[in-house]
Each structure stands twice: as C-alpha cells, then as structure tokens.
C-alpha cells in the first residue's frame, strides 16, 4: 500500500493551492493509500493560525483541515519555520508542532512526497 507525505508551502491566502492539497489528500485516502504526514513549511505555517474564520462564501479553510484531522491524518507544523515567521506556536489549531527531523524521517520512509505550492 503506497505511503505519501505532502508538504504545503503557500500561505492561507492562496486559496487555490490550499483546496488542491486537500482534494489530493482526500483522493489518496479514497483510493486506500496512506498519508503519513501533511507538513506545513515556509509560508504554509500560517495555516496553523487560530484566527482563520472566513465568511461563508470564502474557502472554509479551518473546516477542511478539521476534516483531515477527523480522519486521523498527521497534520504537522514545522516549528523552526513558524518561529521565524511570528506564528503563535502555543495555539496551533489542529496542527502538531514538530521538528524538521521528524518530518524528514517520515519523508524518507514514504513512497512519495508531493509538494504543493
């Protein structure tokens, strides 16, 4: 059974890339593949903000991440990238604060790493 890791490099204001990563992840799961981690890196770390409630005609970013969390997907936030960018790493929504090493080990074991940017 193929195992994936996905990484997101764009901020939450890039709605198009965000919905694409989520659609890809859901397609992976629907085909029975495993997602070992979705990793926020570079500007992607801003997705772990606690203040992302957008009006109902906007992309429901918080809800999309919650749905992935409900499916027990490992949602990881790079702590180094987050600290450099001023994110509050004590309140990181559904994302677990993690070191790069943790992600690198998962990526090394995975069959495929797909970047979204």
């Amino acid at each position, binding site marked *: 059974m193929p195992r994936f890791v996905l990484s997101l490099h*764009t*901020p939450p*204001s*890039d*709605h*198009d890339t965000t*919905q694409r990563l989520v*659609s890809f992840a859901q397609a992976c799961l629907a085909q029975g593949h495993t997602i070992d981690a979705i990793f926020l890196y570079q500007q992607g770390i801003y997705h772990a903000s606690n203040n992302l409630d957008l009006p109902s*005609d*906007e*992309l*429901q970013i918080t809800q999309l991440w919650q749905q992935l969390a409900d499916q027990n997907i490992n949602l990881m936030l790079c702590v180094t990238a987050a600290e450099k960018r001023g994110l509050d790493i004590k309140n990181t929504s559904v994302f677990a604060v993690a070191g790069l090493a943790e992600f690198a080990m998962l990526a090394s074991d995975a069959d495929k790493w797909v970047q979204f940017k």
Partner: protein
Amino acid sequence: MINVLVISQSSPFDDLNIRDALDMTLIFAAVDQNVSWLFSGPAVLALKKHQQPSAIGIKDFFKNIKTLEIYDVENIYVCEKSLFDYGLSKHDLLVPAKTLNFSEQQALIRNQKHVVNI
C-alpha cells in the same frame, strides 16, 4: 482629486493579489479620487468571462469585479499585447475595458500622482 493607478500583473488565483487590487481600486473610488486599474500580463485573465471558483469552494470574486461600474470605477484598462498573449479578445471580458498599447500605457502612467503595483 488625485489620479491614482493600480497595476495588476498577477494571474486570477495567485494568492489574493487580484482581490487586494480590487479592494484598493474600490476604496480610492469611495474616497472620491480618480482611480484607474490597469491589467497587464496574466492579470488580464482576471477579466475572463465564465470562470466559476465557487465550484471548488473559492469566493466568486469575478462577481465583485463586475460591480466596478456600479461603484463608478470607469477607468479600466487592459494591455493589448497581454490580451493577445493569452488568446483573449475584448468580448471575452467581464467588463468594458479600454485596450492600451505600450505608448498609451506610458502616457497613462505619466498622468498619475501615485502608481501602485499590487
């Protein structure tokens, strides 16, 4: 009343750039300034008809672009060469826009107090 020009060069779904430019254009109209909006490069695609971002959960900001006329933003310009590059003609566009060649764009810029690239 000052002349202010907003220039867009980003494709429609590239971050919120087009929406940020739209907000800026509308607000200068709201505070009664003579605002113009120039679409250049892939930004001309933000005026392309029949796009439907709500199909993937993204806000339909093309609807908001259509309201420019209601808010008295009349100076909407597109780069002629960019329209050609992306295979568009004037009747593919959401709103009536004036097509400008490069020397007309130079003249437009020269006529401004402020030029802001968003």
